[in-house]
């Protein structure tokens, strides 16, 4: 409570002078978040925005309701939102082409934000050398979260695993103790994320960049390490029972929280669910990177701002940006969402055990790659999701089949 108050106060003080003359503006804010921790985090931003005298009109279309078409529909329909959660660089290029882009490089420099961002964040918010996104949350796409109570009951120690071999070797023990070793959700989104996290962890940054980067090299698809990645994915798929079908990620997390399964390998936004269930990191649950992983995938959730708007609206949008990147707000936001602050100078008390682990991992620039949504062509990226989800769902589909399909897709889409 006091933390929130402080946040608001600080935000008010910091920019109060700047905004006294500004008109109150209603900002339309488009996002796809819907899980309670995500909504709680958004409310931190809203409080900050309202402190500055602006109001927040919300438009939320959750993932996987078949309507992600919405942002571009809104733009085409002549009702573009002022602020939108978007990573895809293509969208920014389109908007710039339509005269609706808002370059932020200068603003970031004037406000001394850039020097306080981790390198991976700084890299993620630029498109074609120009900063266009406002980073709001930092995540690692493939972390292992496990229930410590279950680990103890099953007699295994996840921290001792140094490779996937170690991990899968313990599965029999876990099953014998009456627990599911790993909870998975059979949903394109979860499988797609697991796949690229595994690619980074198993095949390493080079293969990863060749497949998920902005320049795709189809030769990487034949890399033995990539084959091994798919084989590993198959091991996870084998753990998916009928109940996993279409199960959202947070329900999957709940399998672990409630003690039915030992662990989940997914983005570290899982932490929000754990915190919402009043569990304490390091005491009730442990977090670690994929055993033996060669690299982690960093997701930077970021907001885009609409350009080509009247002066006062643009000022309001920039006010929103300043709320988002404010260190205090970052701390509060991360605590609610379960993310890691995008600023290195966020208050230290906002960092729990898991966030500290994340920052430690991020200390090594060579050990991190970017979420494909920030870099890859959407069509190509989506086609990989299709192939791996089919691979996941069809036990008879071989690794060769999957690779052959990916190559064909490459030829069609990018060739």
């Amino acid at each position: 409570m006091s933390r929130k108050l402080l946040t608001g106060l600080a935000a008010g003080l910091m920019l109060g002078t700047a905004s006294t003359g500004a008109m109150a503006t209603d900002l339309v804010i488009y996002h796809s978040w819907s899980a309670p921790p995500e909504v709680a985090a958004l409310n931190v931003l809203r409080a900050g925005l309202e402190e500055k005298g602006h109001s927040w009109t919300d438009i939320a279309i959750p993932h996987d309701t078949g309507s992600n078409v919405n942002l571009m529909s809104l733009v085409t329909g002549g009702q573009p939102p002022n602020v939108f959660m978007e990573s895809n660089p293509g969208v920014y290029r389109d908007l710039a082409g339509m005269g609706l882009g808002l370059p932020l490089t200068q603003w970031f420099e004037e406000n001394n934000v850039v020097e306080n961002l981790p390198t991976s964040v700084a890299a993620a918010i630029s498109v074609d050398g120009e900063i266009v996104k406002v980073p709001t949350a930092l995540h690692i796409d493939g972390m292992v979260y496990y229930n410590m109570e279950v680990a103890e009951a099953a007699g295994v120690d996840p921290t001792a695993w140094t490779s996937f071999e170690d991990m899968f070797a313990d599965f029999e023990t876990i099953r014998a103790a009456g627990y599911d070793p790993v909870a998975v959700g059979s949903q394109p989104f979860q499988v797609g994320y697991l796949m690229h996290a595994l690619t980074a962890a198993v095949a390493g940054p080079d293969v990863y960049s060749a497949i998920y980067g902005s320049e795709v090299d189809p030769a990487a698809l034949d890399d033995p390490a990539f084959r091994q990645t798919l084989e590993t994915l198959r091991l996870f798929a084998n753990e998916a029972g009928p109940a996993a079908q279409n199960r959202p990620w947070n329900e999957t997390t709940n399998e672990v929280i409630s003690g039915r399964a030992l662990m989940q390998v997914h983005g570290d936004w899982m932490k929000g669910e754990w915190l919402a269930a009043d569990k304490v990191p390091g005491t009730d649950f442990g977090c670690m990177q994929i055993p033996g992983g060669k690299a982690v995938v960093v997701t930077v959730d970021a907001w885009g701002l609409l350009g080509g708007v009247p002066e006062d609206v643009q000022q309001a949008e920039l006010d929103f940006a300043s709320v988002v990147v404010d260190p205090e707000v970052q701390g509060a936001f991360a605590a609610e969402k379960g993310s890691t602050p995008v600023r290195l100078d966020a208050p230290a008390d906002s960092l729990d055990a898991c966030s500290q682990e994340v920052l430690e991992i991020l200390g090594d620039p060579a050990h991190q790659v970017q979420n494909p949504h920030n870099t890859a062509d959407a069509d190509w990226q989506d086609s990989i999701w299709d192939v791996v989800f089919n691979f996941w769902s069809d036990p008879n589909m071989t690794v060769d089949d999957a690779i052959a399909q990916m190559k064909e897709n490459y030829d069609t889409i990018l060739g």
Partner: protein
Amino acid sequence: MSELTVAQRAAGAEIAIDRAPYFPRRKKMITGRSIAVLVFLSICALFFAVPLYVVVVTSFKTMAQIREGAIFAPPSMWTLEAWDYAWNQACSGINCNGLKVGFWNSVAILFPSLVLSIALSMVTGYALALWNVRWAGPFLFLLFICAFVPFQIIMFPLISMTSTLKVYGSIWGVALVHSVLSMPVLTLIFRNYYKDVPQEILSAAIMDSGSFWRIFFEIIVPMSGNILIVILILQITSVWNDYLIGVTFGGFNAQPMTVNLANLITISTGTVAYNQNMAAALLTAIPPLVIYFLVGKLFVQGITAGAIKG
């Protein structure tokens, strides 16, 4: 015609009851076949009713009881909590004002949609069926083809068009798209129905008045009771239940209740609150359900009276 026979049968039955004490006559036996048919129908009815039953009882249960897994068991403790939550507190994105927001949007979309689509297609159907227009034939054929056009193929252009008309993302925009999309089918239904209006009545009216609109309002509209019931029911359910048009054209002010519902079902608080989901689903389904239970009989009658045919 059938009304008469029903009435006659009813009258016959009354007489039979009156006389029963004095002239004990052989009752109409329930035959074996009747029993078999009734049993079969009852089983089917069960199949149809089960989902509704499950949804209803689930919405009144507590989550604790749902987790026990007895899907068909009645609630051990009836509670309206889930209903209250779904109506007043359910979140859609950051706003937690419940489904009631979307409910009023749906209502606001429904009425202009009904008025626009029915007015347009009724007049068009009337003109095509009863008046001699040279290009009616080709136009009718075109409408027939349009009736089969999948929404997807015209979705993107329609977005641009509504945007040009400055109605994208408003209640009016959604209502307009509903009206446009339903126009061909509704017109064909009206046209088929009006085709059965005796040509002589129209001739008489032409000789009496000659006014296209006066004949429409004074003669044709009063004769359209059956068809209007059928169209109203079809159109109310299709507009109310629509998801895709609402989500595509609703922008951020005019999302109907189904979009809220889909959001609510997708948003889950750790474990899925099935009772809330089911309560929300029921809330969304109540208006069309009430209409069906009230006037479903008229619906079948209207169809029997020739509202829909080949």
